[in-house]
């Protein structure tokens, strides 16, 4: 197998007393769409800045395609960045912005012109070359920043919350567009976000960050269905944990277990349960009708609470609202419950 596009080994970074990154090991394969997901302050940007070369690691190494670049300056690395604030040069027009990387690498004028125009076309901005960045909308600036980076055909493209400044509708459009651009150009995308939905829908693999460390790496399905820590279970999707005495009473096991809300079935107390299933009785304390689905909060008799999400296939809001205060049995298949490392 060839070398990974990016390999981080024992990466740490401290700013004085602030330990921003406390030991990160990651391999990112060539051509992968890889997301770094985590709450604000978990060290994602700092990791990205160490890969780009803006920060020097306190310890550990950064490899690109098998070569150690830890000590190289940003302009000596074959990566490009789409900055969160885009960082377009305000004194240059759009075309000059996109040509910048080729210009400083002394690509002949005619060729760089052609490539810049092609890059602008690939982000659907033909005809905008003569404008100043200040004359563009947020979404257009975002795409200029993307074109300016992609035109250099880097080995890896780093994106720091590239959609964070866009409104919801534009963000959803750009998610689809980014994904299709990545498939077209085949460049490794390393994508930072604090939005779990964005990470799950766009990425081949996700690394969940917490307090400067990686809690879990896996495909979106693995991260979502089998969170390996309580933090991941809570940060990605709704935290639904059964622990302590409740775990003993309901599951007959020691430890902490996670079940996703949509895997739970809300049934009558008398519902029969087969051998492949587990169940727990409780009282519905809250019913939230949300159009296509309804969320039930159930206080378990054995202690703790679970949230169940039910599709509104047959029922209406009238039907579900009347369930508040009633006693129910929550049923789920055993293969949907996972042990959590605490």
């Amino acid at each position, binding site marked *: 197998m060839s070398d990974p596009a990016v390999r981080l080994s024992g990466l740490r970074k401290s700013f004085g007393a602030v330990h921003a990154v406390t030991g990160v090991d990651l391999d990112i394969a060539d051509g992968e769409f890889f997301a770094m997901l985590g709450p604000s302050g978990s060290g994602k940007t700092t990791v990205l800045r160490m890969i780009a070369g803006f920060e020097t690691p306190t310890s550990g190494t950064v490899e690109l395609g098998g070569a150690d670049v830890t000590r190289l300056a940003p*302009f000596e690395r074959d990566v490009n960045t789409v900055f969160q604030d885009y960082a377009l040069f305000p004194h240059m027009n759009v075309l000059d912005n996109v040509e910048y*990387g080729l210009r*400083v690498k002394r690509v002949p004028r005619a060729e760089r012109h052609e490539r810049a125009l092609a890059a602008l076309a690939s982000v659907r901005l033909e005809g905008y070359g003569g404008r100043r960045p200040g004359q563009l909308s947020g979404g257009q600036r975002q795409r200029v920043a993307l074109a300016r980076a992609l035109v250099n055909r880097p080995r890896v493209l780093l994106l720091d919350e590239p959609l964070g400044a866009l409104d919801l509708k534009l963000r959803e459009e750009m998610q689809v567009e980014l994904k299709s651009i990545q498939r077209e150009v085949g460049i490794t995308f390393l994508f930072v976000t604090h939005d779990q939905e964005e990470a799950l829908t766009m990425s081949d693999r996700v690394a969940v960050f917490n307090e400067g460390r990686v809690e879990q790496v896996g495909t979106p399905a693995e991260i979502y269905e089998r969170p390996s820590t309580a933090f991941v279970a809570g940060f990605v999707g709704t935290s639904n944990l059964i622990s302590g005495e409740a775990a003993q009473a309901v599951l007959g096991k020691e430890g902490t277990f996670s079940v996703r809300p949509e895997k739970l079935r809300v049934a009558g107390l008398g519902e029969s349960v087969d051998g492949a299933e587990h169940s727990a009785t409780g009282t519905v304390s809250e019913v939230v009708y949300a159009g296509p689905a309804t969320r039930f909060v159930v206080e378990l008799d054995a202690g703790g609470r679970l949230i169940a999400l039910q599709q509104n296939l047959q029922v209406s809001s009238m039907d579900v609202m009347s369930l508040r205060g009633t006693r129910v049995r929550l049923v789920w298949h055993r293969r949907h419950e996972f042990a959590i490392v605490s």
Partner: protein
Amino acid sequence: MNLSRTARAMLWAALAGGLAVVYVPLLIVLLNSFNADRTFGWPPPGFTLRWWEAAWNSTGVREALWTSIQAALGATAIALVLGTMVAFALQRHSFFGRDAVSLLIILPIALPGIVTGIALNNAFRAVLEPFGLGLGMFTVIVGHATFCVVTVYNNVLARLRRTGSSLEEASADLGADVFTTFRLVTFPMIRSALLAGGLLAFALSFDEIIVTTFTAGAGVKTLPLWIFENLFRPNQAPVVNVVAAALIVLSVVPIYLAQRLSGGEAGPR
């Protein structure tokens, strides 16, 4: 804010009074430079260009003007280089004592000119005399530079604060080395701030007299020094007036340009 009618009228009166105190005398100087009466009789019996012609033909005035320009250019050049370097050092790097250094840079503009003048005079004599050098153009330039640095420093610092360092990071990220980044990104971003700071520095130096008095030595005569010297010679009074009028114009233009440069162009685009 809601002000009563009388309060508003009083504010306007105060503003008009304040401006009048400053600008009426300047206006009189300008008018008197065209006054046909040698002793500035008022109202002027007529207007003439005689005094402007006399001033233009006076070798003393011409030499003083040239000296002032040289001094101002020299001080501005030093201010541009030092002010920019200090602004970068203080904005882009944090180190122990940064605020203290910043204060030390700004302080000269607040120090009484006479204190700066005496201090520089002593220092120059102590340092230069052992080498057989005296006070002259060079010491005037250095003296002026002590307070001119501030204007460049302040303008560049404000610009750097506003633009941040992300544009330079973007440039490096796209493959530009440090020098190319400065040439293509940093310099264009601070260019108008440099011009504004430079113009202010030039204007400050051009009409400075106190520090000049202590650092000029015998051979160097700037325009303000020439005015001061000829102020009390009755037959020179009309020419002095012309020079003063010219100085007003020459100082206003750079200040006006500097204000336009630092205010307008660099806003969000």
